[in-house]
């Protein structure tokens, strides 16, 4: 193993095309270069230039006004991931507001709400991933809804999978799209109908159980809830996993025939992969996050974890526990260490429910996912957004969000720090122009696997009149009388020194100081991995001494905690296939027969880079439609097509392809919403079609659960 690990030592991480195209963003003619104050209606995009003094005075006085009138809980810094280098990014605003009484918090994210909530019900933790240097030891890899070649799940993760393949692993990819990962890494692509992952998982379990291929010793020793002999106290008579799979109580055995009807995967294929997976050791089932941004995403997460347990692959090299898979043994990179200070406001909401808190915050309780208090005191009345395009563009149901933000009686003041006039920034009252990361000092410790700290020195002068997020917040702090507390007297470069010291005092004890880091002329400080860490290695060796942090101390195939929630239809204590609220099997399919997914496109990071001409040339924004669906509708590649459902309409060019399951279309997520005079989006923002409805357990986004129809656009 050690030899292979050494072979895997990568001398440098390699940038993706977004990084390669950064030049065009840095020198983009549309960079914001002046503070702007709104003159037209909200969302109209009409602004006038303002001086920094005028703009910052306004921000400071609105903070004071909202605080006095509605209290600190009425102020909100929304989710958004456009800036992440310590001194750019939303953490700068948390620190600011925390010094003046705090703001309404949020928890979870738009990336992994369901998976971060659900994984601990099985394992008691989110640290369920081996270090990726271990992937080379795997002999069978299932990339389930995982596409590391196109999106970034750790820089160069796709290369580690390639190394595993070279080392003899068989790789299969389960995805409605034949992604670049399926093409370049997988031996076999298994197209699945979106939202039916648990049906496939259940049928695989059926094969393993009925053919006695599962690891019974492992299940007996390390798990609870597999069969009636293993049920926890207080739920002795509840339905076990095995009962569900065999259909003992509901009369429906979860056979491959049953799953074929639901998943569109031939039963022979299901049987074959179940056998291969159960008999090839060690194996890893890697769960991407696309499958959990869906109606009942939590069940798919738990279902995948349980397959890894049934096959006895937990806690061993080359194996994998499944779930969110933060890196062993400390959770991996932390992304931001800039200190935000304590938030005096205890209340927080699920990140996806911000619009609910705007509309009816003061009615929101635990039922709506509110934490820290029984009930919110106030609706959100002020939004302080930093590097976030998540209110309009990346939130579900754009037309709804736009209506909410247009109403000045709801959110009374909306300020944003931005580099460009994004669809979200158009709705702001004050837009403050931000410098790029090349124009300031920064530091980053990678995402999401890795043992690196990346120094981001200031290499360019700032565009005149742009400021860092930190600088802007410190100037607002000055107006609010807390500048000294905000800056602690440090310059930006001194904060980076501070951050390096922080890393040294925690998980990078040997990191050089800033001076040495600079002098070494290496952008990256890297700790070599000689022996990859394996999640649950201790538990595997001795489950009595090293109990999991679950209530039973074991892997919970059946969760008593979920059982006690008493909502078996939507939050089952074992992972059950649940038909989604919009699905090809529902009545809605009569009008809207196509499932829509919005995959992470190579040309963007979410909505960042959508205005980059280089990445757009390489990967133009198109709706991808299967050749059979296209033919039925008389559509050819390059045609402008109309895509619609009850929430909105898009007109955009299409590409007819073989590389997607019939019945599914793909609108790569992140394109900037560009409505015409009729409110029809002309760019192709998938969130015009997505729903604001949240998942039952995590209160997470279900933005890939969409039905729509496509037809030839009439007007062009």
């Amino acid at each position, binding site marked *: 193993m050690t030899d292979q690990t050494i072979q895997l030592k990568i001398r440098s991480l*390699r*940038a993706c095309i977004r990084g390669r195209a950064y030049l065009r963003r840095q020198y983009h003619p549309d960079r914001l270069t002046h503070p702007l104050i709104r003159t037209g209606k909200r969302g109209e995009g009409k602004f006038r230039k303002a001086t920094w003094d005028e703009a910052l005075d306004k921000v400071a006085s609105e903070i004071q006004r909202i605080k006095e009138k509605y209290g600190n809980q009425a102020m909100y810094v929304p989710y958004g991931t456009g800036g992440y280098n310590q001194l750019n990014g939303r953490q700068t605003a948390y620190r600011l507001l925390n010094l003046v009484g705090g703001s309404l918090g949020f928890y979870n994210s738009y990336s992994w709400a369901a998976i971060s909530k659900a994984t601990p019900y099985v394992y008691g933790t989110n640290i369920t991933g081996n270090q990726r240097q271990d992937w080379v030891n795997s002999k069978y890899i299932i990339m389930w809804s995982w596409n590391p070649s196109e999106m970034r799940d750790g820089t160069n993760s796709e290369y580690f999978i390639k190394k595993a393949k070279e080392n003899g692993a068989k790789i299969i990819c389960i995805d409605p799209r034949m992604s670049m990962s399926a*093409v*370049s890494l997988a*031996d076999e692509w298994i*197209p699945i109908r979106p939202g039916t992952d648990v049906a496939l998982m259940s049928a695989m379990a059926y094969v393993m159980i009925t053919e006695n291929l599962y690891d019974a010793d492992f299940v007996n020793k390390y798990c609870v809830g597999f069969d009636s002999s293993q049920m926890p106290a207080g739920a002795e008579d509840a339905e076990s996993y095995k009962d569900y799979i065999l259909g003992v109580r509901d009369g429906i055995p979860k056979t491959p025939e049953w799953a074929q009807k639901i998943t*569109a995967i031939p*039963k022979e294929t299901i049987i074959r992969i179940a056998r291969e997976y159960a008999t090839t050791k060690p194996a890893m089932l890697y769960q991407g996050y696309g499958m959990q941004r869906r109606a009942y995403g939590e069940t798919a997460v738990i279902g995948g974890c349980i397959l890894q347990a049934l096959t006895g692959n937990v806690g061993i090299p080359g194996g994998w526990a499944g779930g969110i898979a933060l890196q062993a043994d400390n959770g991996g990179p932390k992304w931001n260490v800039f200190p935000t200070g304590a938030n005096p406001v205890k209340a927080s909401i699920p990140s996806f429910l911000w619009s609910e808190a705007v509309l009816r915050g003061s009615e929101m309780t635990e039922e709506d996912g509110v934490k820290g208090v029984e009930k919110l005191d106030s609706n959100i009345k002020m939004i302080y957004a930093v590097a976030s395009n998540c209110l309009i563009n990346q939130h579900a149901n754009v037309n709804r969000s736009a209506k909410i933000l247009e109403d000045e009686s709801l959110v009374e003041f909306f300020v944003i720090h931005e580099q460009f006039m994004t669809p979200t920034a158009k709705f702001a009252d004050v837009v403050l122009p931000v410098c790029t990361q090349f124009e300031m000092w920064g530091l980053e410790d990678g995402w999401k696997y890795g043992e690196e700290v990346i120094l981001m020195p200031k290499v360019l002068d700032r565009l005149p009149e742009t400021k860092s997020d930190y600088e802007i917040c410190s100037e607002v702090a000055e107006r609010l009388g807390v500048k000294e507390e905000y800056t602690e007297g440090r310059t930006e470069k001194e904060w980076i020194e501070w951050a390096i010291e922080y890393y040294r005092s925690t998980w990078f004890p040997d990191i050089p100081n800033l001076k040495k880091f600079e002098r070494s002329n290496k952008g990256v400080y890297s700790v070599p991995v000689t022996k990859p860490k394996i999640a649950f290695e201790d538990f595997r060796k001795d489950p009595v001494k090293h109990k999991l942090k679950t209530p039973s101390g074991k892997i919970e195939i059946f969760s008593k905690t979920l059982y006690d929630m008493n909502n078996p239809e939507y939050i089952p204590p074992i992972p059950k296939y649940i038909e989604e609220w919009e699905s090809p099997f529902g009545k809605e399919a009569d009008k809207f027969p196509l499932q829509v997914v919005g995959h992470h496109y190579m040309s963007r990071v979410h909505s960042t880079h959508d205005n980059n001409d280089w990445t757009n040339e*390489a990967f133009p924004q198109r709706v991808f439609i299967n050749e059979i669906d296209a033919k039925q509708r008389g559509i050819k590649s390059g045609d402008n097509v109309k895509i619609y459902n009850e929430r909105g309409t898009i007109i955009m060019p299409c590409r007819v392809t073989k*590389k997607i399951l019939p019945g599914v279309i793909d609108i790569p997520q992140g394109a900037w919403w560009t409505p015409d005079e009729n409110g029809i989006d002309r760019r192709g923002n998938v969130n015009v079609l997505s729903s604001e409805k949240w998942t039952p357990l995590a209160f997470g986004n279900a933005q890939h659960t969409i039905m729509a129809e496509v037809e030839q656009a009439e007007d062009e």
Partner: protein
Amino acid sequence: MLWRRVYEVGSGGWVQKDDAWINDIRTYNMSVACNHCEEPVCVDVCPTKAMTKDKNGIVTIDEKRCIGCKYCEWVCPYGAPQFNESTGLMTKCDFCTDYVSEGKNPSCVDACPMRVLEFGELKEMKKKHGVESEVFPFPKEHYTKPAIIIKKHSKVIEVDDTSASIFNEEEV
């Protein structure tokens, strides 16, 4: 204008059987730039001798001689020479000849996150990887003798398979 372009190619289709969708799709990506052919037809047809193959085997354009007539673009089976609207001249991949002369790799080789591109003397590379260069959508090797070796994808499609096509025409 891109000197190196990635072609998504493939064949096959879909049929529905009972409730299942079955496909026999074969696809792979072909990263294609100038292949610095051993018998470069672009050099043969260039009326001003602007296109030459140097002692290292690299095919380059002398911009002082180029008249932008596009003959090279028409004959090249790999789409390597392209017309630059702003200069009125032809342009193409020169294998980063400046880097190569300093003993470095061409940029594309060092940039590829999947590390699938490798650069070296053709003879050495043939020894290491074999001699294969005939893969759809390339033409038969004998036309220009491209200085490229392709490690075949498991789903490789033969050059003369008429059912195959390029999926991303507008990107290449």
